[in-house]
């Protein structure tokens, strides 16, 4: 059951398609508010974003990530191919493991970030927010690999939160509790194969479930049956936005501009400028951007992406960031009120060298109460850790709650 069928050329009549889970999402979506994510309708929220947020932090929540772009990479040069593509050493991602990666242009500017799933020897799946077929195929020149997009061929759900493991066990996935973070395991499920990875975008205990679209509805049903006693709820992207900022995860189009879409060259960013220097491994010989990043490592970069803990209770979306001497040094790229940390938190891009951990800054926040706008210069401090990082996130075997 593929969403997009070109054979009858009626695809243009639909601005956004229904995900394979739509028949289940639609009745649950009390708000009937849908956003668009790539080719698909994606709920902003089903009933109330903050309740969905707490479902994830307190019990478990389900997020449909089918629209995420997925590529399948196989062939005898698959590893060499990926190692030239991304900045980290992919040979360290063993079969059955997942790695977070970033990939760059020759100039060392970030094209996108995403995850590489090492499915088996010489077989990988790569997931990202943006589409990259042109770039990924360009990268195949000189490599014996086959690369296909499988976005519409794989249905995917994220099950995130403290009771997510219990829910999966309830659903019959025996031994899932022993799956380590960034691990992959396969289960047989309704006469098909269900792939489970212990990954997510919430910074909590959580799993991502991958299945063929024909089994999407039954997966959803079984999941909600099993999760019924574990507080399961469906979650939209508004709640996810809060969760990911708490977890300190960046997002393309918000915290950085993908290089292939960026008209103004200076608005692109390097991994160092996004705080992803740890993903750059110069011990492997050649990869896209290596020369430029080596030079940048030596000569320094222009921006720092930092996490800010901001005083007060106003969310700092789209704010300017100043030094204590009122020098403008950057802007907030993502911000939210953190219900778990009970703090106003933000990701911000600052001109280097500003943004050292512990540095005190000012954030200019505009907010309105009953249409009257006010401005506050809120004090903020650069923090090094993430805002929410429970031990259960890494604990193996995973706890039941």
């Amino acid at each position: 059951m593929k969403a997009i069928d070109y054979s009858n050329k009626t695809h243009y009549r639909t601005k956004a398609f229904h995900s394979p889970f739509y028949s289940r999402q639609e009745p649950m979506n009390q708000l009937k508010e849908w956003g668009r994510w790539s080719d698909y309708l994606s709920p902003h929220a089903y009933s109330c974003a903050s309740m969905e947020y707490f479902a994830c932090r307190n019990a478990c929540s389900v997020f449909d990530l089918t629209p995420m772009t997925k590529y399948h990479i196989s062939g005898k040069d698959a590893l060499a191919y990926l190692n030239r593509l991304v900045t980290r050493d992919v040979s360290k991602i063993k079969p059955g493991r997942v790695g977070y990666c970033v990939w760059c242009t020759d100039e060392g500017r970030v094209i996108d970030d995403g995850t590489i799933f090492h499915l088996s020897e010489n077989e990988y799946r790569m997931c990202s927010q943006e589409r990259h077929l042109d770039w990924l195929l360009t990268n195949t020149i000189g490599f014996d690999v086959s690369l296909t997009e499988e976005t519409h061929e794989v249905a995917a759900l994220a099950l995130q939160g403290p009771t997510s493991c219990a829910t999966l066990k309830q659903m019959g996935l025996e031994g899932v509790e022993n799956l380590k973070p960034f691990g992959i395991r396969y289960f047989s499920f309704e006469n098909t194969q269900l792939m489970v990875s212990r990954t997510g975008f919430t910074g909590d205990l959580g799993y991502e479930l991958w299945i063929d679209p024909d089994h999407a509805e039954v997966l959803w049903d079984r999941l909600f049956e099993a999760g019924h006693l574990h507080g399961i709820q469906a979650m939209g992207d508004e709640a996810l936005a809060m969760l990911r900022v708490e977890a300190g995860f960046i997002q393309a189009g918000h915290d950085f501009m993908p290089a292939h879409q960026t008209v103004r060259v200076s608005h692109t960013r390097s991994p160092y400028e996004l705080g992803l220097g740890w993903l750059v491994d110069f011990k492997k010989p050649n990869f896209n951007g290596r020369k430029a990043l080596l030079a940048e490592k030596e000569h320094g970069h222009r921006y720092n992406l930092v996490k800010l803990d901001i005083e007060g209770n106003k969310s700092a979306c789209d704010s300017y960031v100043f030094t204590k001497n009122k020098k403008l040094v950057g802007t907030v790229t993502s911000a939210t009120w953190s219900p778990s940390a009970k703090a106003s938190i933000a990701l911000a891009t600052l001109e280097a060298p500003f943004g050292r951990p512990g540095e005190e800054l000012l954030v200019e926040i505009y907010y309105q109460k009953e249409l009257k706008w006010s401005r506050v210069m809120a004090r903020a401090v650069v923090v090094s850790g993430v805002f929410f990082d429970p031990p259960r996130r890494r604990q193996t075997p995973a706890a039941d709650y």
Partner: protein
Amino acid sequence: MTRKQARDIIQVQIYREPNRVKKYDAIVVGAGHNGLTNAAFLAKAGLDVLLVEKNDYIGGATVSLKKHKDWVYSNCSYVCSLLRPEVYRSLNLAKYGLQVVPYGGSATISQNGDYLGSYVDPDVSRREMARLSPRDADAKVRFDRDIMRQCRFIRQFLLRTAPDPTSFKPRDLMEMFYMGKQLLNLGEDVIYDMMRLYTMSISEYLDEYFEHPLIKAAKAGSGIIGSAMGVMSPGTAYVLLHHAMGDVDGTMGAWGFARGGMGAIAQAMADCFEDHGGELLSGSGVEQITVRGGKVTGVALENGNEYQADVVVSNMTLPRTFLECMDQNDLEPDFIRKVKNFKIRGSSGKLNFALDGLPKFTALEDNPELIKGDLHLVDTVERLELAYDDWKNGSWSKDPYVDMLIPTLTDPTMAPPGKHFMSVFVQYVPPKVNGEDWTSDHRDQFGQTVIDKIESYAPGFKDLILHVEIRTPRDLEDDVGLTQGNIFQGELTMDQLLFNRPIPGYAQYRGPAKGLYMCGSSNHPGGGVMAAPGANAAREILRDMRKPKSVPEGWIDD
């Protein structure tokens, strides 16, 4: 019907007898959109301006005409994107009734019945491209980025006078420095991209992005419109840029219709001009621009009347101005030689149809959305190039490139309800047929070629035709005064761009005689209904007169 509605639809014939003994501050020759823009800016600055026009209607190629009953044809230019918003606003064209309405989408229909659609919605457009080639759909992101980078650069110079690189005058040096600085701001790699884009052929340029023949063919069309080059001729990639750098309300690359046809633009400009006290005299062309002692003194009209002014501004093409409307003894032989060498080859024709109903394109049968945009009938760049080979051989293309639009699907003012006006731009069409002047037989055969081609994609089309106006380059020259029927008043090639346009040494809107100025599309930044040459020339004239600055420069676009 209110006065405004009437003006939207009908071209009012304007004829007024000016005072014969009076001397004007400036006379503008030709009421095309650049002449109108120029005259309006001069009048707005307080000058006493006379605008003379050979036809008894205004607008030049920016015109709406009734050729059949109640149908209004945009019978030359037919869509609007390049019109500088700075001019629009500065002349307050909205107040004078102009409304530009964007249209969505386009379709390129191939012979096998398939097509490539482009839609207002970017996701739908991407999916449509992905239907043909998933890779190309993603490559378009890179393509759009690279084109946009170049558009952003060039847009800065549309409302600026090009510097003379051979000059040591402070102003030229400063402008060269400014250009250099903007160029270096692009960064090394974008500069290299620019050097490549400006000198490559559109077909080779597209090869670096796309793989699907239909996608390449669809994109390549913009590289040849108005140009006497083929898609495989180096230099055509720039022409694509020229068609991509416009916008409608900030949406770059978007195109729109002027409500009431393109003449609505000219009419609004004329109303603005007259509102500021300008005098418009139509119905008699200029016989001669008179010069005495190296200074212009005025114009003598074909009807025998003479008018005086120390400033004469020509909106006519370069050759028409200097070879037809001036005493050759008033000009240097070297200058005349250069004017003669100016490349102004006609390559396009036009068919305007009054239709009894909407044509049914077989390929679009179940897709009523796409017919609102521009339609093209081509499969491959080779097929486009073959059309050019016919032109080189001195004939119109047997399998021409067409850019078709049905404005009446968007604009309710141009035809009775349910009836349609269809504009079909055709390429290639030579200024002469095998070296001979066009005959009416030739014109009919040419028209038939186009009609047959449309019929083969839209069976039954012929039966819908109530009236057709067939326009060859010859007609464009005779009616509008576009030398050889070149719609850009001179080709947009490297040798005729920026400080080379129209000819090196005369790229700052000043002619070879004192008080003589040029404001047509023969000048930087060239053709299309842009109004930039007219505005730039006005700025230079007012500068020479030491008047305060009143002509807008480009808005900053960061």
